[in-house]
């Protein structure tokens, strides 16, 4: 396997930065997320970032197009995406899996979301295996292999003081080619991942939920929920958005931005009717969507076990407990 010392990682990133706009997981302003690589960024390799990389592909606020409205006329003007290839270094298996979910949503079922596709096509990914799961991690229960990500261009392995690299796709081979001179060939074994703290058994949970729309567990589960959007905004798979506009006199910018199924306004119709009026319906929809509706539609769970929602929930509403409760329900 081609390896590099972690201490020399920045040399590689510097080389790659000549070709790509490199994004790395880093600590910044008392949180952590993927940011543009610079020599002085505080890269973190021992744990996953607090905010998922989804905003690289699906920004929290994304301008879509502009309009000029003068009296009765309305002219449309497209907005072009910034050009250039991006390279996302150090994406964990859970977050790679979430891109798989995003691809299903944005690229299939008859319509392609061009905004997403343009960004997706311009990003090359280097996935990084996890040696020690964080306490809130439960990816293996969601069918994610923490050592081998789906859809990565390059798979990187955490080998202690070194990182091993393996090209997966053609794009990945190009990346390796660029840095080949800085890598050494070594016999290295992919280490076994550490134990998961959270024991979750999600087998059959999708099927079990088929008859559970009216189950009393939703009353119980939703009681403590505050209906904030923290879980949905840190979730790497949550992809709901709203479309709105900013009006500046004649100039209108149409944009889309993240939305959350936890907010009452989300399904509120103009006439006043709201099909999901209370937190019970909203919480039920969130978990049903993740564990039943999405599998039904796209044949995969809409949860990758990254544990971020467990980490941020103000009231510790824990999806693994919900899964347990579902499985134990009559």
């Amino acid at each position, binding site marked *: 396997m081609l390896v590099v010392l972690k201490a020399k990682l920045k040399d590689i990133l510097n080389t790659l930065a000549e070709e790509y706009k490199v994004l790395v997981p880093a600590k910044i302003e008392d949180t952590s997320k993927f940011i543009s690589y610079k020599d002085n960024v505080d890269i973190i390799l021992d744990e996953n970032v607090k905010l998922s990389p989804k905003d690289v592909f699906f920004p929290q*606020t994304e301008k879509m197009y502009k309009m000029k409205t003068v009296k009765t006329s309305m002219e449309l003007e497209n907005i072009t995406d910034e050009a250039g290839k991006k390279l996302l270094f150090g994406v964990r298996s859970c977050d790679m899996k979430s891109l798989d979910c995003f691809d299903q949503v944005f690229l299939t079922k008859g319509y392609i979301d061009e905004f997403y596709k343009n960004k997706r096509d311009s990003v090359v990914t280097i996935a990084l295996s996890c040696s020690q799961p964080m306490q809130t991690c439960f990816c293996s229960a969601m069918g994610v292999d923490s050592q081998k990500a789906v859809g990565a261009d390059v798979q990187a392995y955490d080998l202690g003081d070194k990182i091993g690299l393996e090209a997966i796709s053609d794009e990945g081979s190009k990346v390796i080619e660029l840095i080949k001179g800085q890598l050494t060939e070594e016999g290295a074994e992919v280490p076994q991942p550490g134990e998961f703290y959270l024991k979750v058994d999600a087998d059959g949970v999708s099927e079990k939920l088929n008859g559970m729309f009216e189950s009393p567990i939703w009353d119980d589960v939703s*009681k*403590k929920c505050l209906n904030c959007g923290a879980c949905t905004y840190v979730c790497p798979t949550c992809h709901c958005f709203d479309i709105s506009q900013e009006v500046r006199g004649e100039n209108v910018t149409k944009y889309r931005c993240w939305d959350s199924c936890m907010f009452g306004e989300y399904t509120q119709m103009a006439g006043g009717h709201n099909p999901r009026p209370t937190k019970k319906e909203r919480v039920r929809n969130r978990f049903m969507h993740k564990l039943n509706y999405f599998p039904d539609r796209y044949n995969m769970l809409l949860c990758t076990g990254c544990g971020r929602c467990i980490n941020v929930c*103000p009231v510790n509403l824990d999806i*693994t407990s919900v899964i347990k409760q579902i499985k134990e329900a009559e």
Partner: protein
Amino acid sequence: MVDLTLEIRKTAKELLEKGEAKVVLGWEKGNFPYSTTPVFIDKPEDTERLIWDEYCINNLALYMLDYKHLDGKVGIFVKGCDSRGINRLVQDKQLDREKVILIGLSCPGMKDEKKAKELGPNADIPMAQKCQDCRYPDPVVYDVFLGEKQNKKVPEKIDTSDVEEMETKSPDEKYRFFTTNYEKCLRCYACRNVCPACNCKECIFDQTATGWLAKANNVSNNMFFALTRAMHVGGRCIECGECERVCSVNIPIMLLNKKIIKDINFLFGDYDAGLETEERLPLGGYDYTDPEEFM
């Protein structure tokens, strides 16, 4: 910490068995040694789920809004901060004091869950910031009290040294500080939703049709949110620090709330929100002798 778990369970069980309360709100253990989660018990046999340990940090008062129309009484365990939250809701006529049974608990100060996650299970976990700043560890109102009051010596006035330090900076420094922080804001509204002072039936930030706050996330809109919220909870904030605790991107929200508390104390006389239920709020009243700066 005195282990009151058994007493808590017993009290809750009695309330439910005698039918004095329809439901009892407390805490149960979460999935981690350092986590608890609010629990709503309506069957006597479920009272075994209740616990009392150094991680029962959630302020439960705001849940009373969900039980406004319950036919019957609600039992609720209250620490100092929870009890002030209850008073606030009663003061805002959001809650009928007669409909709650407050079971007081003296709070030794809860440990910092975020730090516990970072430091691991064997570390010495520091007290949560909100508890370090707490001046009312004993409930200020209760119907039943379990355990013993600490009557701990607490500072008479809120510690605003961090606010004062901020005030000494130049306008641009201050602006940079707040905007770098609010640039991170996800606008998940956890701070608002967890706040026992926020009890509007429909929040201004949810009235998208009015156009006050666009959904677009940018630093200007986020600052609009932060400042408007700070003003809206001005005089109502009970310093429970829940907003700052739940922020998923660690914005020092209390720096804004404490600034307003400090100024209220200075301008209109010392005021601690949530200590009583009859008086007018600082911003809901006035005094002819208020400082005059508008001449």
